[in-house]
């Protein structure tokens, strides 16, 4: 036997000990490298969220200036009695609040004082008068939104002139920064102090409703067909291949499809939620079909066999037994697909949903914009006031997405059945 001649490895020798130490060090390095990459990836996410929240929370606040308007001394010709009952709206529309506000600002803060107020400051004065007509009989202090420069100065990032102007206002106790509902209730505007997210949010909501109404029935029905009834032949193979490929097609291609088919061929209205919904539905449908098929596949065959055994037809088996059992899984997949569609921007740019819309849309065919497109539009704005508004809109979008994904996880945990 040869083995008798071999000397066994001496594990205690210095060379061996060093070798083992080297290998263990490599092991520790490798492990640390893995941990580092996990932490780095998570760190990116944290940094992203931190940046957005850091920039964005101030977008929900607004700086107001206390403006004292001496109505009897002003050029405003408005009878307080005209503001009661009918005709109040007309009386308000006819009055020159814009000039009065500018004049009051110039008087209070010196020449150029009107520039310290937002372009929409006169709206605040008008609304105050409409709410309390007896203001007109004397001198009144009204909080009006400040211009972007003052707003930025109040939040600590502006040029020297604005800082000085803000310091003067602050010394006179004529300025405050507080949470404002303008951002949550308004629509797009040209002045960053007047913009709001509600118009885009409502557009997103209407578009999502259109998407789910189109994509969900089609997706569920085709998942049922492919999983339960389809014979194995060339046609069903073709359907399967197309669905799998559609799931991987870049979203911008769906935008090109929407532009060529829905706008140029079918002449549907541009910028309308219905077109956005159709485009996003085509994009979301494959996701729903794939999720639906997995959920249907998970229903055990014994359920089908039992139903067939007591005389149900194949349609009854599916609609009375398989579909209800698979529905939680399908819904989870649908919500995840909808969340993806909600964050989608590129296809909607292609079909013209990037127009400037200053009114929340009222229906499926009215021009609208959606949250992610609004973020994109604001990010292109030159005015510095839009930076915090863009980040604030991103916070709104992320919260909405988080809520949808949370709902999907909740549904999965609550209704998931282990067979």
């Amino acid at each position, binding site marked *: 036997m040869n083995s008798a001649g071999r000397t066994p490895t001496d594990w205690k020798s210095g060379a061996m000990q060093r070798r083992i130490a080297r290998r263990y060090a490599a092991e520790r390095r490798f492990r640390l490298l*893995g941990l580092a990459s*996990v932490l780095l*990836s*998570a760190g990116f996410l944290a940094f992203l969220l931190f940046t957005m929240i850091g920039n964005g929370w101030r977008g929900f606040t607004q700086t107001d200036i206390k403006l004292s308007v001496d109505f009897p001394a002003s050029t405003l010709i408005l009878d307080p009695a005209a503001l009661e009952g009918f005709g109040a709206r007309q009386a308000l529309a006819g009055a020159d609040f814009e000039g009065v506000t500018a004049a009051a600002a110039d008087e209070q803060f010196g020449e150029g004082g009107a520039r310290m107020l937002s372009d929409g400051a006169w709206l605040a004065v008008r609304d105050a008068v409409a709410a309390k007509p007896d203001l007109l009989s004397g001198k009144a202090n009204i909080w009006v939104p400040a211009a972007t420069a003052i707003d930025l100065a109040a939040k600590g990032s502006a040029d020297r002139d604005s800082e000085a102007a803000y310091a003067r206002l602050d010394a006179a106790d004529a300025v405050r920064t507080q949470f404002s509902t303008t951002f949550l209730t308004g629509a797009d505007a040209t002045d960053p102090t007047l913009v709001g997210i509600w118009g885009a949010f409502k557009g997103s909501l209407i578009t999502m409703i259109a998407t789910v109404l189109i994509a969900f029935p089609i997706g569920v029905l085709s998942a049922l067909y492919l999983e339960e009834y389809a014979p194995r032949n060339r046609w069903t193979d073709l359907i399967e291949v197309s669905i799998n490929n559609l799931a991987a097609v870049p979203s911008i291609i769906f935008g090109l499809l929407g532009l060529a088919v829905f706008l140029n061929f079918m002449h549907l209205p541009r910028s309308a939620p219905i077109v956005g919904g159709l485009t996003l539905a085509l994009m979301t449908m494959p996701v729903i079909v794939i999720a639906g098929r997995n959920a249907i596949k998970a229903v055990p065959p014994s359920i089908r066999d039992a139903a067939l055994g007591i005389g149900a037809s194949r349609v009854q088996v599916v609609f009375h037994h398989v579909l209800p059992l698979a529905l939680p899984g399908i819904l989870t997949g649908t919500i995840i697909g909808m969340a993806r569609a909600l964050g989608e921007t*590129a296809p909607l740019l292609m079909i013209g949903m990037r127009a400037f819309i200053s009114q929340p849309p009222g229906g499926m065919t009215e021009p609208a914009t959606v949250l992610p497109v609004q973020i994109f539009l604001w990010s292109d704005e030159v005015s510095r006031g839009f930076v915090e508004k863009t980040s604030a809109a991103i916070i709104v979008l992320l919260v909405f997405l988080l809520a949808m994904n949370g709902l999907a996880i909740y549904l999965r945990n609550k209704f998931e059945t282990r067979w």
Partner: protein
Amino acid sequence: MSRAAILFLILGLALVAWASARARAAGFAPGLGAQRPHSRPGHHGWYVALWAAVPALIFLGIWANVSPGLVMGAALDNPAGQALPPPGLQRSAILAELRGLASGRIAQGFQPQAAALLPAYKSSALHYGIIGAVAAVLLAFAGGAFAFTRVSPQFRARTRVERVVMAVLLIASLIAILTTIGIIASLLFESLRFFARVSPIEFLFGTVWSPQTAIRADQVGSSGAFGAVPLFWGTIFIGAIIAMIVAIPLGLMSAIYLTQYARPVVRKWMKPILEMLAGVPTVVYGYFAALTVAPALRNFAAAIGIPNASSESALAAGLVMGVMIIPFVSSMADDSINAVPQSMRDGSLAMGATTSETIRKVLVPAALPGVVGGVLLAVSRAIGETMIVVMAAGLAANLTANPFASVTTVTTQIVQLLTGDQEFESAKTLAAFALGLVLFIVTLLLNIVALRVVKKYREAYE
């Protein structure tokens, strides 16, 4: 009567038909053997309801397409109509205004001819509207009545209804094919029109991209140059090189750590957190890249003395895109490492290899095809990504390998070409479809290859 009212009327009739047929079928004697009714009452109800609703709805659909022509024909059949100018731009403008006036979209017209025709148009619209409504309701009644007479214990309503259900299911699943055909057809059709103006050779191999077509013929640069090579290079540079340099090491090492080293609790929490990276909307990444990453990189480049540092650098877009892609790589790597048979891992560990040696020398080589497939899928995802590059990469079509310089990509140019105010026929807008076609084909090929690699690999261990 408005279209919606007729629709509701027909659906109401169908509901009545459903209830009455169901009630009648419920009254059948529950016999035994041959006397036992074939179908359940619900099936009879659905059968009659379908007969009441479907023919009437099909008729309404056809009528909505036919009646505008009939209405216009009748409205023009009078002296005022015959006095209209011959078919052309002016005539169609008058007719469009006439339609607008009649529907109330336009409050006040500009053309006297349109106002003159309005009464005739309105009366003929009313005339044909009543005809359509009456015919649809009659059809609903006739269909419902015909079906109702067939309700009997022997009638096989269930078979008929289920045949309709199967047809609906089949149609729903055909929509996927229709969408694919629609994508291919629209891309091909517009691209062919583009290639009729610009030769495909020039498009695929030309190195100058400047799609500005002039408004006036004598303007400088009126020809426009459509050489897409700088775009292809920019796309590959950002999506397949820079993004992958970030995503492959981070994604692979994260997957290895989470599957092999991490405690179950850590894995349970960290995996969804990493997957959140893929769930963040791309517009958010784009804004982040443009607002935070790009200025930092430009300052860094200026500090270490790199010339031509642009604030819209390829590096900024590529880095952020790489971060977005991490979860794709890591979840594919996770799957393929988990699919390696336990016996291979156990064998290696039993021979005295450390965990990291097992991973590097056994698990990763065995899982390599799956990892490669995942990387290919990630590349296809990265080159189709739009918002990050639109917001963070530039518009200058440079052919450069300097990561701090500005490059442009296929998707950026598609957005750029299609979002301006452009007539649809110009070579500039058509070029977007040609770029889309190239993008579609490349991502399709990448996906097919990737799925085939992954599938083959799975079969090897099953």
